[in-house]
């Protein structure tokens, strides 16, 4: 404990021995407050032009009393938006009791203050930084408006009495409406019964059948056309074969026969000539034989009985008779050869060729005729198929129409059922309404009989930030937190770097006593950061009177003390990781700038992506800013913000504890001496 105290005091002493700290502690807060204070203390700049459309006249009346803005009243939500679009005002309030703005109200996050009012802040996106300020003003305006409402209770009672008088005629009207609804229900039932869904269904079925029939017909027609094509091809192929057989083959054969006949004819003529020649020679031999006979006869006559001559005469006779026989055969052969009729044969061959040619022509003619008929049939089938297609398309179109009609009819029946159900419920409700009207009448009567003094007005603080035109006040938490975060992150790094440079860190690590060193140093750094923060606070109050020393000041100071903790702890943790000031500055900027941008103050959450909005709202700067703003602005009813404070405080404390834990862990991990044994005893 004593050691911790020494470290703590030493940290303070060491910090104050640094020249730059005097500037950071005293001069810097003074300069910042001076500059920002002068900038925001301009009375001209303090009045904001705001457009407003409100269905609650009392709220507008309340707000018009405030010095911070000048209200431009418009007649509709659209006009309020147009004012912003035209640039006449930076923002407009749209306050409705119900209607399309209901969804948008939730994002504005103000409805919690008065659930019966739905408020939208229409904002020029280029001037979004003012939205937080407007929300704060609106919060306060609503709270103050509640007070006025409480005091205007007499007016409300009078209105209630008027309503009470209007209730009996309303009950009668309800009965009339119920009767009317009953008759409408009957009419709808009748209409429903007239819609014959089964008949439409049957028609659709008939069309389906016809469509199917035409589909089959079209398919068959197409198939037949294909078969005809095949047939035509076949005819063409076979015709050409037949023609070739007849005209080429037969003709060739007959021409060959004809040439053979001509050859035979020429040979016969040659043989005839030769036979005639032989006949002539035989005639010559016969005449010479006859002469020989005469000679021999004469010889016999001279030499009668000469046997040789007689023998010669006999042989010559025999030769003569053989020659006659031969000549006779030759003549016979001549006559047979001459009997062959080559002309007749050629005539027959010619006839055969003519007959073959005739057959080919007939086949060609038949083929042409067949092809013409096939083409004609195909054309007729194509026409038939197109007509069938058109009919089928028409049928399909009609079917779709019928299906549409069927669906419409079905929906109509469903709607009729629904309307009838609703009418039934309305009729049932009408009885309940009548009962409630009676009950309301009783309640209103009871309410109007109570005196206004019996109502307790809402508890609110007499401190109204709205009544002030000090704009520095609205920006003070943000300004303060920027400085806290910046200084808290950077200061521990600077101080630790200096200690590291002069070797004190090494000395401390060697000596151990981690807890006392870390806690002492952290408390010292925390004190200095708090000191600077308090100087901001004091300068701002003394110079520009932003703090009126109300009872809430304790809460504000406590909140500042808590809010400083996590940032100092973060800086302390960073100082364990970073040993050079330049890197520390860089890391601080890298950490600090996104935190500020994601705080919802510079770039409002309502324009952010939902996930980033959640992340942004849970980062330390946002939580700290929220709890600081709560402490500074929303103290009108602390009890309604207890949860905000509890969450903010718990977050800051946990964050600080976590950072300190990790700082200790880092310190320990660097000084682990698990290889070292202390206090060993000498072995004997």
């Amino acid at each position, binding site marked *: 404990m*004593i*050691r911790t105290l*020494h*470290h703590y005091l*030493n940290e303070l*002493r*060491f910090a104050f*021995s*640094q020249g730059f700290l005097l500037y950071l502690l005293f001069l810097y807060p003074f300069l910042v407050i001076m500059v920002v204070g002068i900038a925001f203390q301009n009375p001209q700049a303090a009045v904001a032009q705001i457009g407003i459309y409100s269905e609650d006249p009392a709220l507008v009346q309340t707000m018009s009393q405030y010095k911070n803005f000048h209200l431009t009243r418009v007649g509709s939500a659209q006009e309020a938006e147009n004012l912003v679009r035209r640039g006449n005002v930076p923002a407009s309030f749209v306050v409705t009791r119900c209607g399309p703005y209901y969804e948008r109200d939730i994002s504005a996050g103000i409805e919690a203050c008065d659930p019966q009012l739905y408020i939208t802040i229409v904002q020029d996106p280029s001037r979004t930084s003012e939205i937080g300020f407007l929300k704060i003003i609106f919060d306060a305006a609503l709270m103050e408006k509640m007070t006025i409402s409480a005091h205007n209770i007499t007016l409300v009672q009078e209105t209630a009495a008027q309503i009470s008088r209007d209730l009996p005629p309303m009950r009668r009207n309800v009965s009339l409406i119920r009767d009317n609804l009953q008759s409408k229900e009957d009419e709808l039932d009748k209409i429903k019964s007239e819609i014959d869904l089964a008949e439409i269904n049957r028609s659709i079925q008939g069309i389906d059948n016809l469509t199917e029939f035409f589909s089959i017909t079209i398919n068959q027609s197409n198939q037949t056309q294909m078969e005809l094509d095949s047939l035509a091809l076949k005819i063409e192929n076979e015709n050409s074969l037949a023609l070739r057989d007849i005209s080429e083959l037969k003709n060739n054969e007959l021409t060959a026969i004809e040439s053979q006949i001509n050859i035979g004819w020429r040979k016969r003529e040659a043989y005839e000539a030769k036979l005639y020649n032989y006949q002539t020679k035989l005639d010559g031999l016969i005449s010479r034989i006859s002469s020989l006979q005469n000679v021999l006869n004469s010889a016999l006559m001279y030499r009668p009985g000469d046997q040789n001559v007689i023998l010669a005469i006999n042989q010559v006779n025999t030769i003569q008779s053989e020659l006659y026989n031969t000549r006779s055969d030759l003549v016979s052969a001549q006559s047979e050869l001459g009997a062959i009729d080559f002309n007749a044969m050629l005539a027959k061959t010619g006839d055969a060729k003519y007959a073959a040619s005739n057959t080919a022509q007939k086949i060609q003619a038949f083929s042409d005729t067949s092809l013409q008929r096939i083409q004609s049939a195909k054309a007729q089938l194509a026409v038939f198929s197109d007509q069938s297609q058109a009919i089928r398309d028409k049928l399909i179109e009609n079917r779709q129409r019928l299906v549409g009609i069927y669906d419409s009819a079905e929906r109509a029946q469903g709607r009729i059922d629904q309307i009838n159900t609703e009418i039934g419920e309305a009729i049932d409700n009408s009885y309940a309404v009548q009962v409630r009207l009676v009950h309301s009448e009783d309640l209103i009567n009871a309410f109007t009989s109570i005196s206004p003094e019996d109502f307790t007005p809402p508890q609110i603080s007499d401190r109204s930030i709205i009544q002030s035109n000090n704009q520095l006040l609205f920006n003070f938490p943000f300004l303060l937190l920027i400085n806290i975060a910046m200084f808290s992150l950077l200061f521990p790094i600077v101080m630790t770097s200096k200690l590291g440079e*002069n*070797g*004190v860190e*090494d*000395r401390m*690590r*060697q*000596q*151990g*006593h981690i807890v006392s060193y870390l806690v002492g140093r952290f408390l010292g750094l925390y004190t200095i950061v708090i000191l600077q923060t308090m100087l901001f606070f004091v300068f701002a109050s003394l110079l520009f009177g932003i703090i009126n020393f109300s009872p809430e000041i304790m809460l504000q100071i406590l909140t500042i003390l808590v809010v400083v903790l996590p940032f100092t702890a973060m800086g302390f943790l960073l100082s364990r990781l970073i040993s050079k000031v330049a890197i520390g500055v860089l890391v601080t900027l890298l950490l600090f700038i996104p935190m500020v941008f994601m705080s919802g103050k510079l770039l409002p959450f309502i324009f952010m992506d939902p996930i980033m909005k959640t992340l942004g709202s849970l980062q330390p700067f946002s939580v700290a800013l929220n709890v600081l703003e709560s402490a500074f602005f929303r103290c009108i009813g602390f009890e309604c913000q207890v949860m905000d404070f509890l969450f903010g405080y718990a977050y800051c404390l946990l964050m600080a504890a976590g950072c300190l834990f990790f700082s200790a862990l880092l310190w320990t991990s*660097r*000084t*682990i*001496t*698990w*290889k*070292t*044994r*202390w*206090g*060993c*005893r*000498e072995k004997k």
Partner: protein
Amino acid sequence: MNILEVDQISLKTGKIKRLDRCSFDVKSNEIFGLMGQNGSGKSSLIRSILGLQTPQQGEIRFFCQRSEVGYVPQHYSFYEEYSVERNIRFFRNLCDNPYSITKILDEFELSEFKEMKAAHLSGGYKRLLNMAVSMVRPLRLLILDEPTANMDIFMRRKIMSVVERVAEGDMSVILTTHFVDETESYCDRIALMASGRIRAAGTVREIVSQYGGDYVIDATCEDGERLMGALKKAGYETHKERHSISTSIPHAMGNTGIVEALRIYSKFEVSRLNVQEPSLSRAMQVLVEHD
């Protein structure tokens, strides 16, 4: 009785091997010197012993408590913005059973500067203050990392005399240094380091006898050739460089060998004569070159 035992310590940072199986021990009431050239691993060894760096291998055994070990870093590790007295007061306040401020100021001869801002002290007194803030309590082991670096000869003597004085009590001292004369004068035992390893350890005499080389007689003689002949005849290893004749006498021959050699020299007209003894610096050179 040992106060510290370092057993097979190895340290790597990244891929660089800083220490390689270093072992030594420090006995009670002795001054132990760690010698080595720059980058040999002296500071890494000291930091590992103190737990400022964690070695990957080995074990360090202290036969005392952590609070009984003092550390004087190489660089000034006090608050330069504070006065001398304030610095001593602060570090004293962090200890149990500290010495009185007056005693510390007197011990380190800082009394006359006690009001002075530490930043305004001379380099030597800053070094003394650096030691003083480490010794504000009774210690059994003091570790000094190059306490006399960048000091002039007078300040070095002053610092070392302070070290010697404080070590007279029941305290051991480990110091790292480049200076051979300091080591020879003040250290009871030493360890020579090179490339992260302890190459030799023992008393200065042991190391010198083992690694310090031979006695060398270096002379200039007109009649060099005859002198060399006479020396070689007597069995001495001799060689000539220009006019200079060097004779090596093995360490084992000791003084007898030197006297014999000088007797031979005395027979010739010698214009210059120098006798070099085996030394720690030569031992260091030999070990570093060997590495």
